[in-house]
């Protein structure tokens, strides 16, 4: 991961742990999906929207549809961060 991607991953990880309050931080790795970590549909949206908000990005909801795991999410947020 580039330093920019690492920074985005840390933001996503922090929000994952805020929503999935009893999750062991060591479990949150880039190849996992939020579903793998026990997130329900609302939890997933909460993590993603709060990370987008913390990074101050504008990301249309349709852009999130193909995201399969945290790597995909970090890549997507990275592309929008470059544009902003």
């Amino acid at each position: 991961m580039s330093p920019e991607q690492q920074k985005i991953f840390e933001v996503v990880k922090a929000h994952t742990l805020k929503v999935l309050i009893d999750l062991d931080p060591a479990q949150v790795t880039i190849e996992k999906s939020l579903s793998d970590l026990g997130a329900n549909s609302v939890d997933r949206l909460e993590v993603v929207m709060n990370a987008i908000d913390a990074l101050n990005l504008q990301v249309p909801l349709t852009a999130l549809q193909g995201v399969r795991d945290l790597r995909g999410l970090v890549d997507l947020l990275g592309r929008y961060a470059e544009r902003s």
Partner: protein
Amino acid sequence: MDRNSSVAVTGMGVVSSIGMDLESFGRGLAAGKCGVVQLDPKSGSASEIQVGAVLREFAFEQWHSTLPGEVRSFFASSRKILNNTTESTRWSACAAMQAFTNAGLQSQRSPDDALGLIIAGSNLSQEYVAQNWSRSIERAGRINPKYALSFWDSNQVGCLSEILGARGPGCTVGAASASGNAGLFQACQWIRSGVVDRCVVVGAGSEFSRLELDAFAMIGAACHGRFQNDPERACRPFDAAAEGVVFGQGSGAVVLESRLSVESRGARVLGEIAGISLLLDGHHLPDPSVAGEARAMQTALRDAGISPEEIAYINAHGSSSPLGDRTECDAIKQAFGAGSRQVWINSTKGLTGHCMAASGVMELIATILQLNGGFIHPNRNLEAPIDAELRFASGAALPCDGVYAMSNGFGFGGFNSSLVIRKAEDERRD
């Protein structure tokens, strides 16, 4: 009403500005403790209104961590369910979890298909709505996704049904300030008709925004005059100097149960709802009605099958509204006749503030604690009673060995409701 159709109260729980559990709430009542404080002008909730009985120290996570290990494990899912939801939902959960364990239901099979759940109250989280509006505007539409669930009052039913394992009937019930009594009324009908064996009723707390508080002030319903910098003296039910309602935060929950269910599981009965009424005046205004309130009290007495003379004590609606308190005095005289001179009267709102939708359930709990504890709590700030013919509790707790009490709840829109409450048999034998 026949003895078998009374509904038992087998569990109680409370969150209030005068006590965060049954024991401290009972002590607060006996001492006439005041929960009203000066509001923080920066809190966003205060403009015209500067006093309130608010829950400043409550934090669900902290409260949960103090539960005994077994109970904490039973309610392990509650922390995640209540994460990023409304404060009102967390108060409701805290009160309901107390009532549930107080009734010994954590040792029952879970989930429980015979357990109903009613959340009493409407428009419970107006401050949450206001904050989410602000967030949406400030952050260019990046809204909190959980808002789609949490803005519904009925989300409290969903959250608590998951925490308690309730799989019987459930819904919210609204009747403005009479919501608590309306929720109890609905649960009593379910239990009497056999729809459900037991039912948790939560009087949910209201999180008002500045808009609701200022609107109450504008129509003259809320205290916003000379007691604005004297919080301990602001709430004064039945006193000539009263200026209006002082709002409060809190929640109360009870477990109601059929006689059959009590017997089959050997539950301990704390008190009984012997009679109950919920009637409309046929208008939509805030104006209280002597005839309507008297009719609610008489209907509840008839439902219980007792005469007014058997009521030892009335837990009045007593909201510290000059017109509301005057109207209730006249209604008590009309419903009780000559007996109105003998019955003791107090108002729990003088201590806790007016906890809106929660107040009916909180005041049922206050009434049972007083009947079982053999006392009547003081009326705070009652220096010049507005009615010399009625028997108001004074500035100190009084002894009381009565068996029956009444609790009144009235609401904007012409809602009138009364409960007849009977002391538990075990307590009567002692």
